[in-house]
């Protein structure tokens, strides 16, 4: 099932792309795939990131992804 992943800020920097398409049925499966592809540096960044699934922040990695879902990967920062 095709889902779109969008990387922002530091996540974009380590992934090297801003958008990619994946076949994944759950957030867990998707995270496994992108870590395999982009390596441990992304894995480290992901520990602090918010995942927005179609705009809703989701901490439950078991959540199912519907076909066409958009997952935004957002690292937090607090500078001002």
């Amino acid at each position: 099932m095709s889902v779109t992943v969008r990387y922002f800020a530091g996540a974009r920097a380590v992934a090297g792309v801003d958008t990619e398409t994946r076949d994944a049925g759950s957030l867990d499966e998707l995270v496994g795939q992108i870590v395999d592809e982009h390596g441990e540096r992304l894995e480290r960044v992901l520990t602090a990131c918010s995942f927005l699934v179609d705009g809703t922040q989701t901490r439950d990695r078991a959540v199912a992804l519907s076909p066409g879902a958009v997952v935004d990967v957002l690292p937090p920062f607090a500078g001002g």
Partner: protein
Amino acid sequence: MTLPPLVEPAADLSIEEVRRYSRHLIIPDVGMDGQKRLKNAKVLAVGAGGLGSPVLMYLAAAGVGTLGIVEFDTVDESNLQRQIIHGQSDVGRSKAESARDSIKEINPLIDVRLHETRLDSENVLDIFREYDLIVDGTDNFATRYLVNDACVLLDKPYVWGSIYRFDGQVSVFWNEHGPNYRDLYPVPPPPGMVPSCAEGGVLGVLCATAGAIQATEAVKLITGIGETLLGRLMVYDALEMTFRTIKVRKDPEGEPITGLIDYEAFCGVVSEEAQEAAAGSTITVDELKDMMDAGKDFELIDVREPNEYEIVSIPGAKLIPKDEILSGRKLSELPQDRPIVLHCKTGVRSAEVLAAVKNAGFKDAVHVQGGVTAWATRIDKALPTY
């Protein structure tokens, strides 16, 4: 999301005000009505730093009648690369007073209120209550969660902005009508994981881009024009030169905010592992100097990044960046035959690394309290701090 105007219009504008704001008055969407709303508005800037500078200067120029400033800090030379509300002659002065002087120079008609205190759970509600709108430009996670929760409790909207290196994020949060900050970032990142601008740096002009968006949203909220960023996050990438907006919805699983908490404890300064590792294994820069002078055999390891090492370093220190040790890649470069002394800029990162090297079996490793900054301020005052 289109919202009704946040502020009622003032009774009238003086002739002086009509002259000053004429370029606003001739825009049909702002007009006399919008300008009178700006005149009547009370906006509080939390922080007069990188984001607070453009926010305060533009809102003053725009004619926001009352501007509050929460700021306890003084102007440092390293602020001037981006905090354009302060100037060379302000170094060492109160940031709040320096910001007030700049505002008065831009627009003497503005009433400026200073809150020269550190915002905390005790004072936040009393300070926020006086204002229609809050603009958050602080520099740490603890204050950001405090600002959010206080705004939720008081049913106030706020314009949130955050910057790091080349990246900016801006949104409007208003729990009554849309998401709040916890719907985007429910919990803070692990302590020590996300560097601050002081540790990681920030492109100076990024403040102008992000702060200008915040000021724009403030004007729109006050006057009730246009589509605000409520329910959307604006993400700016200065290197790619892209603006992307992301839809943000309320988290149906989000826990309701019913009171203020201990935000320092919530966000932590360093992780529990690092605190445990550092207990009894922390030395001061004076002790480090004594060890050097006594000719003790040890390896001093600097866990900062190469560009920081270039700016200033402690003599004899070997550079192995934090991530190289935490990932295990350079663990083999640590000496087995003599004690390890770790340091970073201020002692936060070195405490995290200390926990990792202790776990890897280097039981007698220690780290240096205050890092190279303490070294430069106590031992070798000729060295720069950054």
